[in-house]
């Protein structure tokens, strides 16, 4: 066997927009109507290409991330990879068993017990009965729901449901594994266990394709990444290079509505050298905000904050909070300010939001969300939202002081 696990060659996928006749009651009048008007052969122009000329190759044991904005073609690529959809044009080669961690509970039937569902879902995912039998203990232990394994799954909580689904799917042992955003299931501990399991799968030599718009998990898991935009491949390279490209691709600042009395005319994130979107954890960054007024307006403040990818605000400040008096503007006047920030943030992707705010009447005039997106890299392995720059200064192992009773 060759060392190529998966290859796509010039894959195109076309979709039809607009009305599709899904009942004979609609179709028959539509066709007869068209026949009378003599336009039966008028071709439908309302089509668009979801994927255009996608070619790439993944070697055995490699892990490739697929990133892109909503509508970039990720889901279509995924459906073609998992063979649910056929490409309009092009060829795809898969060497070995392919399995997808997409909808991990799709095969479950609510009326069957957890145990029955393990066998049902396992066979749907392509395992043989004997294979499931041999992995049964592992699967049940991984899901952590031993007590309820003989209960119909419709009585499960949604977390238990998802855990059992992932447990089955994670034990398929395919040669090629496609992972979609399944890591959002379960609680934090379980998510970590899922990530660990995926790493373990990669270490066992499985080829992994990871589809996500969560840059953080992609960079944690994949060596290489592919960036899709509007159905085309923009870049295939090392993950951090592609991640940078992805961020630079972010939508340019939309000109604020003309009706607003005052608007944010410019937001820029820079390091000492100039505009930048990638920073090392702990580095200094400067945020320039420019505000322009159309009407005379008073008592304003500029507010900025960072959110992580789940829209959770991790940091928040404003000119007023930093002790600067509110400013007032004449029509056509501008106001500029620069914030200096120490980015003690852990590795990840963060969005900067800027707002013009008047504190005494609690009114927001204009907001840019996100005004910028930054990507933080870290040389120290830390998790969570902040970087406390940990150092290990003492480590020792002590022998037990008293003899333990032996059994």
């Amino acid at each position, binding site marked *: 066997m060759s060392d190529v696990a998966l290859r796509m060659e010039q894959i195109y996928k076309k979709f039809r927009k607009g009305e599709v006749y*899904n009942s004979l009651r609609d179709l028959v009048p539509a066709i007869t109507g068209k026949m009378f008007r003599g336009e039966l052969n008028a071709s439908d122009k309302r089509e668009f290409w979801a994927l255009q000329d996608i070619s790439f190759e993944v070697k055995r044991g490699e892990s490739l991330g697929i990133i892109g904005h909503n509508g970039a073609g990720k889901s279509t690529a995924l459906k073609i990879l998992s063979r*649910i959809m056929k490409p309009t044009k092009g060829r795809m080669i898969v060497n070995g068993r392919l399995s997808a961690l997409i909808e991990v509970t799709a095969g479950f*039937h609510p009326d069957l017990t957890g145990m029955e569902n393990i*066998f049902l879902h396992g066979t*749907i995912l*392509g395992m043989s009965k004997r294979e499931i039998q041999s992995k049964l203990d592992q699967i049940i232990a991984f899901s952590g729901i031993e007590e309820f394994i003989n209960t119909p799954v419709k009585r499960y909580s949604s977390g238990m449901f998802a855990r059992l689904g992932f447990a089955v799917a994670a034990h398929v042992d395919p040669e090629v594994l496609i992972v979609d955003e399944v890591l959002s299931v379960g609680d934090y501990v379980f998510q970590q266990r899922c990530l660990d399991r995926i790493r373990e799968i990669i270490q066992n030599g499985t080829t992994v394709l990871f589809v996500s718009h969560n840059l953080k998990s992609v960079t944690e898991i994949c060596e290489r990444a592919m960036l899709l935009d509007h159905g085309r491949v923009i870049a295939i390279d090392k993950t951090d290079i592609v991640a940078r490209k992805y961020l630079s691709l972010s939508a340019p600042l939309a000109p604020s509505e003309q009706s607003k009395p005052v608007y944010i005319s410019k937001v820029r994130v820079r390091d000492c050298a100039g505009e930048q979107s990638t920073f090392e954890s702990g580095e200094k960054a400067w945020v320039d905000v420019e505000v322009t007024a159309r009407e005379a307006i008073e008592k304003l403040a500029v507010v900025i904050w960072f959110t992580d990818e789940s829209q959770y605000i991790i940091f928040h400040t404003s000119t007023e909070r930093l002790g600067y008096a509110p400013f007032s503007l004449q029509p056509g006047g501008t106001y500029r300010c620069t914030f200096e920030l120490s980015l003690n943030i852990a590795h990840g992707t963060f969005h900067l939001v800027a707002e013009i705010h008047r504190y005494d009447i609690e009114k927001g005039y204009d907001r840019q969300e996100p005004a910028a997106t930054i990507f933080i890299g870290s040389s120290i392995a830390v998790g969570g939202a902040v970087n406390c720059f940990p150092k290990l200064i003492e480590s020792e192992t002590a022998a037990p002081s008293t003899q333990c009773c032996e059994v």
Partner: protein
Amino acid sequence: MRMELKELYKYRELLYMITYRDIKVRYKQSVMGFLWAILMPILIVMSGVIVRYAYSIVSHAPMKTGDIANVAIKSVPWAFVVASIRSTCYCLSGNRDLVVKIYFPKEIFPMAAVLACLFDFAIAFGALVIILILMKVGWSIYLLWAPVLIATTIILCLGIGMILSAVSLFFRDVKHIVEVLLTFGIFFTPVFYDVQMFGPRGKLLLLNPVAPLLEGLGACMAKHASPDIPWFIYSLTVGLVTLIGGFVLFKYLEPEFAETI
């Protein structure tokens, strides 16, 4: 097509699992349990007996045990045909998640639907055999035809099921049309009556491919006679053509399922 069949063979355990699931789910929550499998045939047999009774009053000929046996023998497979055609119409839309999200040969769904109905049929047929023995209907060498005729019925149902399951995914009203056809189908199929009651023109009724099979079963099990072999060959041909054509059509439409459903 060879590749498709090979893949289907690879997924044979899944066919078993889905069939098992369909049967298990159907019986799991019903108080009546296996009575469900024979409820429908019992109802059909009872209506058949009433119809036959009416004939006998009109024609002043007394009703014979053989007539009742004949109606019962034809009713049970008819119930199977109706149930499997009906369930194949819903088998893909009822498994939406699996059709949209996971790859495997989707013809497993109509096949499992027919097999699950076959399970009910087996129970009902077992009950029927016991009743026939109690009625002292007797047996003959022609009984060997029964498995052949039943197998042909299954082939026909699988073929129709493949076509209907795929087509009803693209046209939502197909299942309503099928429902109406199934309701009135019993009048166009020799279940309660025999074809020869209509004289020579009765042969037209045999054009319905299910009819020669039911007539044949009635002949070999109740009348101890051979089925009409040319008409049996006609049914078998229609069945095989439907099955192969249905499979090809199903495979042709399969890539569109995920986009259409």
